[in-house]
């Protein structure tokens, strides 16, 4: 890498709770690749889905406070692991280019917000700013024999005008990373289908149906595991996998990794730093199979 990569880092609320391992592994991987992440000081919630279902100015005000915090750090770009935070931060910046809307939002804030900073996903900076080929060079423990499907979820790259990243029906960023790490990638046909999002609590039946379909399909194409880039997708597929099995009469035991966790493993980072033990569906068998393959190759 020629120029140092520096970003403000917006963890998002789920990073402090249900997606702790995504946060841990994102930080660990970036550190290992000399990508500097500085936490946005005193960041607050972006409002997530609930805020934009109530009002767009409320939603943008909650996000704008954070964009303004980033601007005060003197950095011009911000990264977040969470696609929902990303969508909100980007939408706020975009909509506030309209003067009327901007005034409406600023009216809700203590002081007018500087919203010029760009926000990207951790996935996007790894692929676009760091580069797949550079990632490939850093692999010390290839994921040989791991058959994996990449599941992107619905909002990581949609709408296209806003997200400006990868293909909206057939994204490849994670597939390419997995391939660079030495895994065998099976094309996952439901890459951008919805997992049931935040309906797990108020309408669990919907999540059982939608996430169940994802697991059935992953199993059907012979994937040993799925990789995700979204806390909500990961939580629905991993934490709720038992519930899904019960509701649908299925028997899945499919590990659902964050892509950063698998990257970390391939970069030789210890499991503990990547929060592997925090996954609900144990990935032990799958990880042992990779180790066995590596040993066999070495022998």
């Amino acid at each position, binding site marked *: 890498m020629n120029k140092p990569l520096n970003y403000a880092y917006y963890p998002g609320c789920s990073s402090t709770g249900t997606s*702790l391992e995504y946060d841990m592994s994102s930080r660990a991987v970036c550190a290992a690749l000399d990508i500097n992440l500085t936490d946005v000081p005193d960041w607050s919630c972006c409002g997530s889905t609930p805020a934009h279902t109530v009002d767009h100015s409320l939603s943008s005000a909650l996000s704008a*406070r954070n964009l303004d915090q980033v601007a005060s750090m003197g950095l011009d770009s911000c990264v977040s692991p969470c696609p929902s935070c990303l969508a909100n931060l980007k939408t706020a910046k975009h909509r506030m280019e309209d003067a009327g809307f901007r005034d409406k939002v600023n009216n809700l804030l203590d002081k007018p917000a500087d919203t010029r900073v760009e926000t990207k996903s951790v996935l996007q900076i790894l692929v676009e700013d760091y580069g797949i080929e550079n990632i490939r060079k850093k692999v010390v423990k290839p994921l040989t024999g791991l058959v994996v499907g990449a599941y992107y979820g619905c909002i990581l790259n949609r709408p296209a005008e806003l997200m400006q990243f990868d293909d909206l029906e057939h994204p490849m960023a994670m597939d390419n990373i997995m391939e660079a790490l030495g895994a065998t990638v099976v094309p996952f046909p439901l890459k951008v289908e919805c997992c049931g999002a935040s309906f797990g*609590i108020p309408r669990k039946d919907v999540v059982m149906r939608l996430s169940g379909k994802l697991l059935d399909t992953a199993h059907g194409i012979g994937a040993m595991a799925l990789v995700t880039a979204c806390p909500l997708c990961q939580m629905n597929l991993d934490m709720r996998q*038992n519930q899904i099995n019960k509701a649908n009469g299925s028997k899945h035991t499919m590990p659902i990794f964050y892509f950063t966790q698998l990257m970390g493993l391939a970069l030789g980072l210890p499991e503990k730093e990547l929060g592997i033990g925090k996954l609900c569906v144990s990935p032990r068998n799958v990880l042992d199979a990779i180790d066995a393959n590596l040993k066999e190759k070495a022998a």
Partner: protein
Amino acid sequence: MKVININLSYNSDFVSQVEEESGQKLNLCYQCGKCTAGCPYTAEYDISVSQIMRLTQTGQKDKVLQSKSLWLCATCESCTARCPNKIDVARIMDVLRHMARREGYTGIRTVKTFWDSFLNSVRSNGRVFEVGLLANYISHTGRFWTDIGLGPKILPKGKIHFKPVEMKGKKEVTKIFMRFKQESAK
């Protein structure tokens, strides 16, 4: 199929308000049905998304605003991504939901309560405090927590905090909500 005489219930103010708030032109929709075909929630909707588009286009305000679909839309953006006329359908769904809220429709009570509980948590803590959110949701719906079985799975993972994380600027966040309330009352 129920027949609606659209001439009797055409509400032109509704049409222009949706267009203004969403920045979209409703008459661009030619009812191809692509949005409905790709919508992951079609099976759950009482009125499919393309039908919502048609009813909105033809000014059927009450029918649209009382639809349960508005509360099940996950803003997955599939409709927006696939509309051949480049209509931001998801944004229209969002705007309709705002209007339904303002007009006092509850839609699906559990969903609305969940979103409200989420925002209450952000308003008082600046960030989402998951345990507090759940307590709030359970007390407002009177529903037994159907996820109780998850407890033994997630508790040992150290992901659940029983106290909100303290942040300095939480008053700033509370003030955003207060000002929003004042503005909405105007």
